[in-house]
């Protein structure tokens, strides 16, 4: 796990409710890569998707599985045809599935793909001058 460094002074946009932490250089992560970082004892999983970075809590809401080891996916869907619900894979919503039991969350919002209250905390990511930051 990497310790993220506080970078609020440099960026000058911290508030009493959130702090911006430096994570890594953008070039250090390729699409599909993930990074586990510790921020003040809080374990965050950072993912690089096809277009942006995502930061989520590393602990699955189910039984605490390590989200940083989960597979990045797109959720399956179903389309009603004349006589059946056909499974489809049209969604381009990036998700990550817990490696323990498969609980699947949208990386952007942290919402479970099932209509449940068990959602995962997410954090804003910021890219500036080739550096990646997360706001906690």
């Amino acid at each position: 796990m990497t310790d993220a460094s506080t970078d609020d002074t440099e960026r000058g946009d911290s508030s009493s409710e959130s702090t911006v932490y430096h994570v890594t250089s953008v070039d250090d992560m390729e699409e599909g890569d993930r990074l586990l970082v510790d921020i003040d004892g809080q374990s965050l999983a950072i993912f690089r998707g096809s277009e942006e970075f995502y930061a989520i809590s590393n602990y699955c809401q189910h039984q605490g599985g390590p989200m940083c080891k989960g597979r990045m996916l797109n959720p399956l869907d179903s389309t009603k045809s004349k006589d059946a619900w056909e499974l489809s894979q049209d969604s381009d919503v990036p998700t990550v599935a817990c490696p323990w039991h498969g609980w699947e969350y949208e990386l952007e919002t942290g919402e479970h793909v099932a209509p449940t209250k068990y959602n995962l905390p997410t954090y804003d990511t910021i890219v500036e001058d080739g550096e990646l930051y997360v706001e906690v």
Partner: protein
Amino acid sequence: MGEVDNDGPIVFDTDFHLNEGMEHLVPYLVDPYKTLYERDYGEEYRDPFPQAGWFAPDRMGKQSPRQVQTREDVSDAMAEFDIDYALIQPSNCMHLGSVHHDEFATALANAYNEWASNEILDSEKGIYGSILVAPQRPETAAAEIRDRKDADEFVSVGIPSGGVHPPLGNRRYHPIYEAAEEAGLPIVMHNAVTTIMTAFPQLFQEFSRNLTCHATLHPMQQMVHLADMIVQGIPVEFPNLKIVMQEAGVGWIPFMMRRLDNEYLNHRSDAPMLEKMPSEYIEDQFYFSSQPFEAVQEQKYVEYVVELVGSDSLMFATDYPHFDFDNTEDVMNRLQRLPEAEREKIAGKTALDVFDIDQHD
């Protein structure tokens, strides 16, 4: 014994699985099975267990569980999950009851026990196992138990209960029970889902008594229909449809609400059309008649079940004049401690609403 965490209670994991493959079992098979198996399959080690070939989207390339195939694998997982003692069970061999060749099934059970004993189990590290038996040959199974009963690493007798035919109450299994009792070992039963292709649900004549049949089949059938209707999207396509399930008692309802929700969170791709959790569809569109209201003498149970099912879903029924009918006065007495509004719903108002009947003057 495993790594004991002195800060917490002793943790004994009573169902911890190996991912055994035929490559682990074949070296321990007795002849002629070993020779025959290797002669036909060479190094490919084709799986002898019947496969249903099911399609499970959420298990395909999604979860990443580790394979547990060595003693070190077991120890690592025990340390990771704070387990002090573990009762080891197989995975593939849970399908043993569906193996069509009875003698080969006993040889597989024997090979598994040999492999587990030699390469996995270790009583000093808290890694214990069940003596796996093939229910197809009870006398051979009894011999397997007697041969291994004094080994420290075996603390129970494992019956793979899926695919077993006839059910395990049949007298033919008495040799297994006699041997287990004589050895002082508990019987551990574990099902495997895909064995339903060979022996589930049992047909009527396989249920030895009416009690067995009646006690299990009513809730089992309703469980299957309830799950299938939701997973196939019936309440999504027919959002105004009300569905009433009868004659299955009540305790299974909150169980299934929670079991379906729990499974749906893992396996949403089997029913992506759902817009609510399964339990919410049950609350909104399914209704249950109360009879036979089991444990009606247990006031706390009755109140708790009513609370969990909800008075908007539960409807009193007598089933009169069937043999197991419920007496109105008796059931109403058990509901006395509920708030009046809830009691009235269960007694009749929910039914008036479901069947769209104006209350008579």
